[in-house]
């Protein structure tokens, strides 16, 4: 019997988050290195309060590199533990520190821009250069759109052989204004120009819920899924997708079984309040269907395992079969290996979710003959 292998693209991998390591700081101009030495780079970044994780870095124990350093600090080790383990075609590197800083919170504007550039330069030299299967998300000071646009341009035009390895523009889901607001449109214009999706990765340091902060990490981890609602509502009702018809949005680590019920709700709200938003050209659910992608980790676990098939079917009959993309969240504790999908998920679905959908969204080539098969022992799952 032939063993079927599914080529894999992992849409969510995290380099170590500490931004103050000497490797990154070396890319800052001296003026800002001095400043960071005195004031720090993430001063008062947890404005939503602290709920210490159950492990430092919220990481897998076994993801600490044998030679030392934080999980996700060694590209070679990450390659062995992830890319090689599952014979991946590619993986997206999504940085956490710029997300905690909300694109420039509590930083002088010039430092915010210099810091994002430093992180991008470090990722290029240490990660992208180390293996052609690493792809980058561009960190930008997105609350300062003119500077964000310049950073996108720099990554896509001034990085020579690496220009095409940048595949996404990164945002946190708690912008200072809802992300559909016209103040951010210059960024979307640039993203559309370069064919880059806008990625929103979970984490908040600004505000945890619309009723203030929660008290437990358990609770925070649940509440993250609520970011989706105002975020997509803003994109839809501001008419962003009419203004930028080729713009694509990826919701990363924000779960996904909510997406279709939310689309229904937006359609209802629209039908009741249509007179307020005559500028919309289509139904909210149509914008969501055509413009929004989702990463899978943490994989949905309905009480009745059969209901995962229902959810996948809902995506398919709603015209969104091409919108789900596998993600591992390596090296974090709630990491999903490709084997995290229930065995019932069919071959065709597995192929789309594990690699094809992300390859199409980001323009990443799937490497023929590579990938993972359900026949493979779940080594990493036991690790």
């Amino acid at each position, binding site marked *: 019997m032939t063993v079927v292998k599914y080529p894999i693209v992992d849409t969510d991998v995290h380099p170590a988050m500490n931004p103050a390591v000497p490797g990154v700081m070396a890319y800052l101009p001296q003026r800002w290195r001095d400043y960071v030495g005195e004031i720090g780079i993430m001063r008062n970044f947890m404005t939503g309060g602290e709920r210490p994780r159950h492990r430092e870095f919220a990481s897998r124990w076994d993801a600490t590199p044998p030679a030392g350093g934080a999980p996700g600090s060694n590209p070679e080790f990450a390659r062995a533990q992830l890319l090689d383990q599952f014979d991946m075609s590619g993986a997206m590197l999504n940085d956490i520190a710029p997300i905690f800083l909300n694109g420039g919170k509590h930083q002088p504007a010039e430092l915010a821009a210099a810091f994002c550039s430093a992180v991008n330069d470090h990722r290029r030299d240490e990660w992208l250069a180390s293996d052609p299967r690493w792809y980058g998300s561009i960190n930008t000071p997105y609350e300062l759109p003119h500077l964000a646009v310049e950073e996108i341009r720099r990554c896509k035009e001034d990085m020579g052989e690496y220009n095409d390895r940048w595949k996404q523009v990164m945002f946190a889901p708690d912008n200072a204004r809802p992300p559909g607001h016209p103040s951010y449109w210059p960024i979307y214009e640039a993203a559309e120009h370069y064919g880059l999706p806008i990625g929103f990765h979970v984490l908040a340091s600004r505000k945890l819920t619309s009723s203030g902060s929660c008290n437990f990490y358990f609770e925070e981890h649940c509440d993250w899924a609520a970011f989706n609602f105002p975020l997509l509502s803003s994109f839809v009702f501001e008419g962003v997708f009419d203004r930028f018809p080729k713009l694509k949005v990826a919701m990363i680590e924000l779960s996904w079984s909510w997406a279709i019920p939310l689309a229904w709700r937006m359609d*209802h709200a629209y039908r009741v309040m249509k007179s307020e938003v005559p500028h919309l050209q289509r139904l909210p659910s149509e914008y969501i269907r055509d413009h929004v992608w989702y990463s899978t980790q943490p994989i949905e676990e309905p009480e009745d395992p059969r209901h995962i098939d229902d959810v996948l079917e809902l995506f398919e009959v709603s015209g969104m079969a091409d919108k789900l993309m596998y993600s591992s969240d390596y090296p974090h504790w709630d990491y999903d290996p490709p084997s995290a999908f229930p065995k019932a998920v069919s071959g065709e679905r597995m192929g789309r979710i594990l690699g094809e959908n992300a390859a199409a969204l980001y323009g990443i080539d799937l490497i023929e003959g590579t990938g993972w098969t359900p026949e493979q022992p779940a080594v990493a799952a036991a690790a």
Partner: protein
Amino acid sequence: MTTALLENTSRDAVWDGAVIDVDVHANVPSLQALYPYMDQLWIDWCEERGWKGPSGAAAHYPPKSNRACRPEWRPAEEAAASRVELLREHVLDPWKPDYAVLNCYYGIDSLRHPDWASALARAVNDWVRSEWLDRDPRLVASLVVPARDPVAMVEEIRRVGSHPQFVQVLLPARNDQLWGQRVFHPVFAAMVEHDLVAGLHYGGTTEGAPSTTGYGSWFVEEYAAEWQAFAPQVTSIISEGVLQLHPELRVSVLEGGFLWVPSWGWRMNKEWKGLRREVPWLDRAPLDLIREHFRFSVAPTDAGPPELLAKAVEWLRSDDILMFATDYPHMHDDDITALLAAVPESMRPKLMAETARDWYRL
């Protein structure tokens, strides 16, 4: 068809069994209407300052919008849903409910002065009692409380909570603090002591950004996203151990939809498995606690295509969790016939009346 209106059909054609409507609204027509229920001091304060009443209600329900009132229910010369006769004409007579649960959302949270806010809450409750509850035995109601002052909340619950027609305490979904937090635990104790349901309802504080991502531009944008206010409140009440402290507590989620519950609950169950050492009092899976301690009104339903809606209802895995509501006079385009068709036959009488009858002890 928008069934709450019963256009081109009759109530018996929609459902020939018993009906209980768990969310109808009374609107305070003007601040002056409350004067008979205020001490002279507060009347003077209102008059001297030219204050017209809290701005919160209009912030959440722009008065001229469909969201505030369905055009067919909008009276020519007076405020919508401001007299019991209007409620009778539009809901109680055509729908013939055994009971209706009356909610008066007046936006008290936008008034800061603690004594004044408490006086306003008392006036609203006494107005509801005299002008609505005393005038129609089919009505039961929520009492309102000043959300920033737990001591005053408890006092108000003690003052009116024993009235047989007050069955619930209205807790606005948006608040300065999440409702499960310890500062509010005495309030839940008072509710349980008076056998009152906690009614988590659309609306709440107008302070600060209404979302995790700042100030939205459009009203419809905010309304469409308001699951964001309800879901973390449910998670807070569960995470903080309120249900272990008060195993008798009942929480209704009103005008907040329910299609988010399965997805939200799956995530809570999963996180609980991974992180429950942090909340050791949580001795059961969150979704099991939701099914036992929470009920959800079906206006709005936010329904999708009927065959898909049936699946989304099935994911709840309970016949007892949904309760019929018209949300009078607010406009929705829900079709209760489609919802009834989407739920199992055994669930229909429960959804239309029996779950609410048990829940509110009617």
